């Protein structure tokens, strides 16, 4: 067991910190260096991640649609997304003449930066976290509420009626679905008593919340999945870019790298949402344990935490992708009906039940 953990990410991070602290005397310089390393490694992680998610999305879609998917560029089409990126890099980034150029160029940057910022408190493995902030969950929901501003900005500054309609829809959608996301997150926070990601993961050492908290937590998990799918503007809630209605919604006028940034942000957001769900409901990097089966539990422990985390995250990513490739899109008023008439009341009642569960210790 120790062998696996030693070479896992957390050990690497600790080793790096000790080495830096040993070789550089100035504490500020150490933290600045660490920040730089974290930033660079985040970028190095995100770009291949987005490549992979793009490839995965195409393949998942293709297999669900009885197709093969990309299979021309590279073995089994793995390099297709690289080819697409190269294409987008060399494409002319058009800026409409009548647009508000400052905001038009700022919007994709805001969208990408906010989604990158939200990566900070995600715990990839034990002690392997960019910033173990004591309000981790609140931080993520605060930062993700910033993304809507980028979308509003993009839609408004494009000087395009479709974009404007898309931005309006997106604004209404994100603002209202944030409530359900928040409430379903709060139910776990109540059970844990902490907003810190590492505490939340640690509280699941004896069982994941979705098992420990049974029905109420399962309900909030489902609500979280639905509401966060809506919050990251993915089908069936992709009204902001509803292709058949608004051609491409808020990013109609974007092309080239600026468009790629929206795409990048979409995939980063997808990952973040899934990672949060995996951390809060499925135990993060905690391995799966079954009661007193020590042999089974030991086998599970041999799998490194980062693998557990990634496995759970990708399971949820797959589910969200399956949503997209199965369901028709909702209409804008139905979207709001779903939130205000179904998700919000249920999650409110659910929070009360969870609170009682936490007080009386009904959970396992």
């Amino acid at each position: 067991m120790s062998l696996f953990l030693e070479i896992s990410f957390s050990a690497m991070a600790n080793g790096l910190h000790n080495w830096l602290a040993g070789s550089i005397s100035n504490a500020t310089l150490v933290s600045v260096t660490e920040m730089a390393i974290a930033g660079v490694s985040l970028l190095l992680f995100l770009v291949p991640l987005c490549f992979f998610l793009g490839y995965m999305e195409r393949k998942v879609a293709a297999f669900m649609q009885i197709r093969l998917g990309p299979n021309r560029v590279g073995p089994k089409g793995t390099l297709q997304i690289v080819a697409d990126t190269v294409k987008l890099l060399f494409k002319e980034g058009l800026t409409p003449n009548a647009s508000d150029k400052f905001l038009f160029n700022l919007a994709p940057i805001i969208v990408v930066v906010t989604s990158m910022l939200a990566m900070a408190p995600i715990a990839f493995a034990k002690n392997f976290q960019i910033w173990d902030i004591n309000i981790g969950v609140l931080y993520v929901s605060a930062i993700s509420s910033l993304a809507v501003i980028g979308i509003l900005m993009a839609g408004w500054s494009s000087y395009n009626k479709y974009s404007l309609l898309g931005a309006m829809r997106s604004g209404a959608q994100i603002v209202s679905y944030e409530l359900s996301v928040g409430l379903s997150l709060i139910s776990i926070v109540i059970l844990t008593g902490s907003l810190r990601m590492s505490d939340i993961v640690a509280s699941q050492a004896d069982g994941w919340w979705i098992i420990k908290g049974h029905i109420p937590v399962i309900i909030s998990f489902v609500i979280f999945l639905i509401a966060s799918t809506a919050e990251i503007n993915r089908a069936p809630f992709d009204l902001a870019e509803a292709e058949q209605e608004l051609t491409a919604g808020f990013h109609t006028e974007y092309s080239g790298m600026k468009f790629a940034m929206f795409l990048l942000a979409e995939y980063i957001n997808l990952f973040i949402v899934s990672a949060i769900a995996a951390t809060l409901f499925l135990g993060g990097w905690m391995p799966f344990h079954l009661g007193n089966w020590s042999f089974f539990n030991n086998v599970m422990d041999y799998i490194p935490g980062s693998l557990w985390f990634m496995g759970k995250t990708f399971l949820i990513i797959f589910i969200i992708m399956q949503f997209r490739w199965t369901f028709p899109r909702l209409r804008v008023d139905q979207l709001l009906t779903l939130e205000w008439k179904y998700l919000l009341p249920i999650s409110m009642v659910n929070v009360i039940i969870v609170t009682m569960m936490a007080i009386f210790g009904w959970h396992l």
Partner: protein
Amino acid sequence: MSLLGEDIMTEEGEFVINIGPQHPSTHGVLHLKVWLDGEMIKKVQPHLGYIHRSIEKMSESLSYRNFIYATSRMDYLSAHINNQACALCVEKGLQVEVPPRAQIIRILMAELTRLSSHQLWWGCTGLDLGAVTPFFYAFREREAVLAIMEESCGARLTQNYCVPGGVMYDIHPNFQNRVKDVIKQIKSKFQEYDDILSGNVIFEQRTKGVGYLSPEDAVSFGCTGPTARGSGVSCDVRKWFPYDGYEKVQFKEILETGGDCYARYMVRMAEMKQSVYIIEQLIDHIPEGDFQAKTKAVIKLPKGEFYQRVETARGELGVYIVSDGAASPYRIKYRSPNFSNLSALGHMATGSKIGDLVAIMATIDLVIPDVDR
């Protein structure tokens, strides 16, 4: 420079957007000018003519044998039925008896065409409402149907299989077996269609109560086909004015009384099953005999006017030929179903949302070349 000034909004604060002629959900070059109040549609104005090829005028300079091929390009999804309508009209003028074998082959092909057309429509409806996957399931079965067409008629879409007096050549020896296989395959997939789209709660929400068309309005707009039958108007030409021996075939005219998008959807879904039923009745009973009646090399219609209506996958197609006795028609007019059905779009869409407009367009099942001709 004004970003949201008068050039985007009208004086009354209305927002005017142009949907099409290039737009992901207009299925062709339909241009809709839409007046919006927020998301609410206040007025819809279709602009036509982007794909007008003057098929009617062109036909006036072609012989009676030759003009039929062009009708395949009108409603390209029910190309065979269009050909059949023209052939029937010419036969009416010539007073030629079509051999029973040719009649049965025509009906079989027409029903296969209807089936493939409805399959495409089903996929596109899903696509328009944002569900991409049904499109591919629909195309899987459609491919099988088109393969039958290709084997017997030599083309998948623009068959030109009907000629005055019968069909151009006999069916392929494999035809019966292949049809039976395909029918079996399609019947097993109807449940999947229901699972992924018909029964889906989002789909029901998107279509139920949307785009209501009252029976009176359906009649006054001249709607025909599933669009009218969804409103409870009985207008199946196959029942009312049987042609090519439809009177001998058992099938039900599907009527739904909802009048909304869901009703039109259900009509088409049930029509697919009826088409399968018709094919099943006939496939083992294709009579032996000629596949084409003897006609003169140069067809000349007697002086007069001839009208023939058929039921295409979208409604009633009328072919009106005025003949002056020459070898080519004096005047041809097609009463295309899509043109009339499109005229009801504005009425249906007023007061609903943009998303509904897409749903309404999908369930009218527009084929724009048929509108413009």
